[in-house]
Structure formats: C-alpha cells, structure tokens
C-alpha cells in the first residue's frame, strides 16, 4: 500500500521493513484508515455521539445548577429566619453585627423595632398607630414584593402603609401632608416620602429610619429578619449557630416560607430528574442505533479480517477500539457544546449563567464509551456466528 510505485521490493526487504516497525503500527493504521476512508459514515456516527453527549451534559448541568438557581428565586419570598427578643426586651445592641459575623456578609439581615404612637390631631390624643424603625436600604433588598411609590431618603421621612395613610395623612391634592405623632409625650413631625402596599400587616404601619426612630422613642430593635441562603440543612445549621451566639433571643424558622420552598423545590427536582433521565436515555438510543448500523455495515471488513486469519480477540479489540475512540472524541466535543447550551438556557430562563460543572465530565465520558462499546459488541456477537464466506459472497 505504501510502496513507492516502480520500485519492487523483494519479500525479504518487505519482511525486514516490517520487523523494524512496532507491532502496533498495523493496528493503529487500520483504525486511522477506517476513519479516513469511510469518513462520511464515521462522521454521521460521530455526530450522533456528539449530540448525545451534549444533551446529556446539558441535562446533568441543569439538574445540578437549577436547584441553586431556584433557591435564589425563592429568597425573593423574604426572610426564612426571624430573631425575636424575649418578651418586653430589646435585642442586644451588637445583635446585628453578630448575625452578620455568623452568616457572612452576603446574608441579608434586617432589624425592625416597634412602637405604638398616637396621632396628634390638635386638641386631644388621637388614634393609635404602629410605627416601625428599620434600615430602608436593607428592607428594600429583603422585601422585593413591597410596592413602594418612593423610598425615603431624608431624615424624618417615612414610608406610610396604604391603610395608615388614610388616617394619618389624608390626601391633599397630589401630595400628602406632613403629620405629627406622639410617643410617651414626645412629639415628632414626619413627612411621608412614599406609600407602601403589601396586602398584609405592613399596610397599617408607618416605617421610619432606625436612627430617627431611636432618637425619638429610645426603643432598640426587637426583631431581626434574616434571609439565610442554602439548602434546608444549611438553614437549620444557621439557626443553630444564631441561637448559640444570641442566647437571649428566640431564633425561629419562618415555617410558611421554608415548607413552601421545600415543597415546590422537591417537586421541580423530581420532574427535572425524570425528564433528564428520559432525554439522556433517548440520546443513548440514538447513538446505539447509529453505531450498530455503522458496525454492521462493515461486516465485509470483519469477514476479510477473519478470512485472513485474524483471531477473534484481535477483531473484537479492533472494533472496540474504534467505537471507544469515537465515544471519547464525541464525549469531549459534546461536553463543551453541552456546557454552552446549559449556559444559554441559564441566561434565557434565569437571567444568570449556569456555572459549568466539570465534575459531570467523567460521567459523560464513561457513559459515551459504555454506549459505544455496547453498540460494537452487539453486532459482532451476531456476525461471529456467520461464516466469513457467506458475508463475502454478499448474502
């Protein structure tokens, strides 16, 4: 095959040349030539392999990452842990700093302090209203669902709940009037910066900045709402840690939020798992169908090799090596395509990229090679029972 035209080699020369070459060279050459000469069929088999590996990578990546993504979505429901001072007391002054040192700076913790003030309407003490001191910047991050017309920025500016507004500061034209409240004889004039609408208890309260609130009432925060990240187990651990550093307070999970999240997440995960399994199985089937066809198609090669006296082990090894090589190349290419697709889905659906998980690569690789080997072994098992002569005759 590789002899130079015109120069005839004696059998001895040929034997000499072959003796020097490593014995594996023929094996490697057969592999290589098979791929090059039948590149169209090889390419279609490789394509199936790549697509299957890409789909499998995408699904595995999504399965791992989507749970983390959904957990971030669930944090929009607000605090899942509350720290409440024991009855009639305030939390220690360093409570917020302690919470942040335990849970890390990324966790959101918002202090709240409560007082019941009276509305001053000229002559006598008027109706009671609950005034809450808080940190507006943090509350805004924690409670995404609050519908606020304008957040306060200047001192003594307040956020007025929808129901509270009708009582304390009736609408005068387009703007709302400042109003006066008294707490234990101390009066304060407050300017409504914006309206707050939540559909819950917040609607009948007035929100004031914590430092203004404390100057006026002298009441320190009695509640800290915490949005703890992570799985249910992580949150449980956070609760235990918080209870340890704040022995004077009551640390409890918000069951409504925790159980709702667990419920929805479990169902979604189970659905995702079922779908991922189906999709991966289908793509494995696709590879199996293509590769069996590809190997079966080469029964003549098989017959010639057998007729020339190749051992069964050699033939099996040859086909296995060929399909395994296909599996490896397909897995590598498919893995990177799959990572790309997963990242794209993350951006389209969650507006945040899915982090590539290189840990799934061994599984994709092992799966690809296993499917490739199965699809090589099946047709060979069938062909082994047939005489080479029958195959070569084309029957």
């Amino acid at each position: 095959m590789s002899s130079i035209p015109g120069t005839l080699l004696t059998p001895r020369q040929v034997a000499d040349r072959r003796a020097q070459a490593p014995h594996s060279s023929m094996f490697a050459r057969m592999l290589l030539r098979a791929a090059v000469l039948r590149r169209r069929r090889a390419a279609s088999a490789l394509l199936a392999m790549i697509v299957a590996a890409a789909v499998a990578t995408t699904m595995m990546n999504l399965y791992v990452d989507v749970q983390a993504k959904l957990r971030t979505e669930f944090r929009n429901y607000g605090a899942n842990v509350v720290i409440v001072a024991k009855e009639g007391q305030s939390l220690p002054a360093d409570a917020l700093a302690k919470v942040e040192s335990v849970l890390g700076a990324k966790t959101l913790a918002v202090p709240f302090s409560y007082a019941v003030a009276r509305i001053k309407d000229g002559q006598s003490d008027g109706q009671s209203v609950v005034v809450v001191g808080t940190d507006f910047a943090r509350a805004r991050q924690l409670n995404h669902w609050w519908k606020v017309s304008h957040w306060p920025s200047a001192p003594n500016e307040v956020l007025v709940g929808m129901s509270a507004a009708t009582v304390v500061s009736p609408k005068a034209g387009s703007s709302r009037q400042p109003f006066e409240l008294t707490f234990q004889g101390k009066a304060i004039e407050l300017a409504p910066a914006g309206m707050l609408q939540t559909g819950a208890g917040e609607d009948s309260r007035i929100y004031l900045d914590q430092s203004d609130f404390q100057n006026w009432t002298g009441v320190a925060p009695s509640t800290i709402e915490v949005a703890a990240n992570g799985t249910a187990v992580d949150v449980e651990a956070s609760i235990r840690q918080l209870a340890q550093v704040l022995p004077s307070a009551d640390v409890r999970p918000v069951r409504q939020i925790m159980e709702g999240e667990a419920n929805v997440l479990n169902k979604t995960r189970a659905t995702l798992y079922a779908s991922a399994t189906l999709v991966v199985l289908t793509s494995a089937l696709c590879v199996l169908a293509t590769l069996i066809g590809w190997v079966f198609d080469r029964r003549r090669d098989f017959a010639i090799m057998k007729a020339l006296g190749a051992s069964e082990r050699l033939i099996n090894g040859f086909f296995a090596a060929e399909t395994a090589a296909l599996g490896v190349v397909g897995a590598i290419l498919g893995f990177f395509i799959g990572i790309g697709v997963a990242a794209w889905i993350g951006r389209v659906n969650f507006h945040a990229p899915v982090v590539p998980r290189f840990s799934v690569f061994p599984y994709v690789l092992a799966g690809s090679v296993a499917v490739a080997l199965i699809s090589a072994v099946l047709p060979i098992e069938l062909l082994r029972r047939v005489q080479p002569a029958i195959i070569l005759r084309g029957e």
Partner: protein
Amino acid sequence: MFPRIVYESFRRQARRKLLAGIAITLGVAVATAMIAVATDIGDKINRELRSYGANLVVTPQEDTLDVEVGGVNLKPPSDGAFLNEADLPKIRGTFWHHNIVGFSPMLSVTVKVGSDAKDVTLLGTYFNKALSFGKDDFTTGVRITHPWWKVSCGNVKESPNCGWPDDNSQNVLLGERLATKLGKHPGDAIDVSGRQLTISAILSTGGAEDDEIVAPLSVAQQILGKPGAVRRVYVSAMTKPPDALSIRDPKTMTPEVYDRWYCSPYVESIAYQLQEVIPHSHAEQIRQVAQNEGTVLSRIKGLMLLITFAALFASALAVSAAMATAIYERRVEVGLMKALGAGNLAVSAIFFAEALLLALVGGVAGFSAGALLAHQIGRSIFNSQISIEPVLFPIIIAIAVFVTFAGSAAAIRRAVKFDPVFALRGEG
C-alpha cells in the same frame, strides 16, 4: 404490485422493521410524555405554590387601622366593621371558583386566660368546615389555606380525641409557646373569659399563632357577642402570572379588554370578583405570596419548555438514525429494482410508504406508551393525574410521520442515487 412489495418487505424483514419500529415508538413515547408534562406543569406547580398559603385577603371596606405588634392586637376587637359569615360561601359562585383552592375566615378576640387573667389573643377560624353553595358541597379552612400549620399531641400519646378540633365543637388548639407558658397539655380544660374550653392539640405554625389560642369561628363569635362576624378572609387561589394587562385599572378598560381581563385568572381580577360577591368588602392581594409565585412559576415553566425541546430533538434524531440505518442496508435491493427498470420515483415511493406505515404504527404505540409514562410521572411526583389532551394525538402522529420522513429522506436519496452496478456487485 406496489402494495405487494411493501407487504413482502414487512413480512420478510420483520426483525429489521421491528428495530426501526421500536426506535420510533420509544422516540414518540418520550416526546408525548414530555409534551404532556410540560403542558401540565404550570397547573401542577401552581397547586404546589399554594403551600405558601393564601394570596388574597378580603377585609371590610371601612376597615379601621390595625394596631398589632408581634401578633398581639392592641386595639379593642369590637371596634370597626365586620364581614358577614353568611356571605362567604358565595366565593364559590365567582367566575374563577375552580381556581379558588380554599378560604379561611379569621376573627381575633382578646380574652382573659386562667386564674391570673392574662390577656391572650383567641383566633376564630374554620379548620375544615363543610359548607355548601347551591348544589355544590365543599370543605374549606386553614388545613387547606395554611398547610404549614402542624398540630401535635405533645407527650399525651394516648389521648383518643387528640387532633384537629371539630368546627362545631368547643375544642381549641393551643399555640406552642403559649402552651409552654401556661403549662397546658392536650386534653386539659382551659378557662377562657369564663368559658370552659377543651384543648384538643398543640399548634405549631412558626408565626404569631404560636402565642395564641385558635378556636372554631363560632366560639370566637360567641365570646365577642357578634354572631356571624368575620374580620378578614384569607383566600388561596391559583393565578396566572401578572403581565401588562393584569395591572391595568378595570375602570379605564374598553368593554372587550375588560372582558378579557375579567376572564383571566389574574390575582387582580379574582380580587375584583371577590369584592363583587361579598358586600362591603375590599379584596387585596398579599404581595409577598402573589408577586413571587408568578416568577417562580414562569421560571419552572420556561425550564420545562426548553427541556421538552431537547427531548423532541433527541427523539427526532433517534428516529432519523434508526431509519437511515434501515434504508442504508437495503442498497442491493434498490440496485435490483433499478436494474429491473424502476424509476427513482417508484423506488422512493416504496421507501416512503414503508416509512409512513412504520411511523403510523410506531406513533400510535408510542402515544399510548407516552400517555402511560406521563400518568406514572404525574402519580409518583405530584400525586395527581397528568391529563393528556386528545388534541395532542393527531399532533403527535403528524410529528412522528414528519420526523420519520425527514430522517429517511437523506438516506433514501442516497440509496436511489447509488449506481445499481456497484450495489449489485456488493461494493458499498
């Protein structure tokens, strides 16, 4: 002659046809199951999201200001307006009553407990009350709207009456922390403002109710001396995520837009309809629950849609691969047919007829298998049926035929173009 060729081809190459048929069946089954799950997942997850509790609250129109800190109401409870309990079953008469999973009326009363006469809040509500509206019998209450409320019997394991109280009884639930404070156990009697009530179990909610007594609504009404009074009603409804139409003010809409808005299960339009059926009421969405469920729902739906596309793509490829292999193996046959004078068209027609038969048989079998698979997924994950729309059947069959044809087309073209001489000599 044509039907005979096709018939003989199926009879003599039964095994090969079976392989291609299995590939089509599996592909169609996966596609059917995924489409069924994806179209139903919104409804299923919507139901699961109800475990976050009520997303609507109905209050009297002239509601006075609540003065409530940490779950303790500091305002005299007899103040202000009330809703009428008799109006509540009408909630089942609204346009979207199928979407309303449940509702719970609430009435808080401040009561004196025990000998030291401590102020405690007693919350009256429905636990699992049987009601009827017209011919429609249903049950509703906190066990549906507040699924995270848990009752326990504490150390009293053997108490036969331990559990959720009956709505028509004088039995109450005692909040977890209040129970510790008072040292009471299930089965004990409790003196509430001069009334002897029985504690049927300890309630744990993780919220303000842990410091309260929760009683049947009628008990709270008797204590307050206002029969039929309800302070607010929590409604749990399955809603559609908000969009540009949902947030518009119904007063500014044209009649057609108004009809469309009214007939969509937006949280805003359900609130509007609740206001219509309950006189002198104001219905408001609870934004913490209502606003977030839209986002979660659309994320999960979007994800399933993309995965369904992946599944359709993978099954289409599997079917094409199987068909291509099946046809490629029959080049010799093509060579023979062409040598006997068959035209390209005649040869293609035979292959397409075979593909059509395979696609129809595989499509029907795959659709049934897929329906079964979807049913299994629905039962094991969501504990409920995943309904398969009958309209899906022709669509699935059409997709099966299309994919089989598309998968075969390239292989058929190649088989037809192949020179019969080479084919007959056995050189491929």
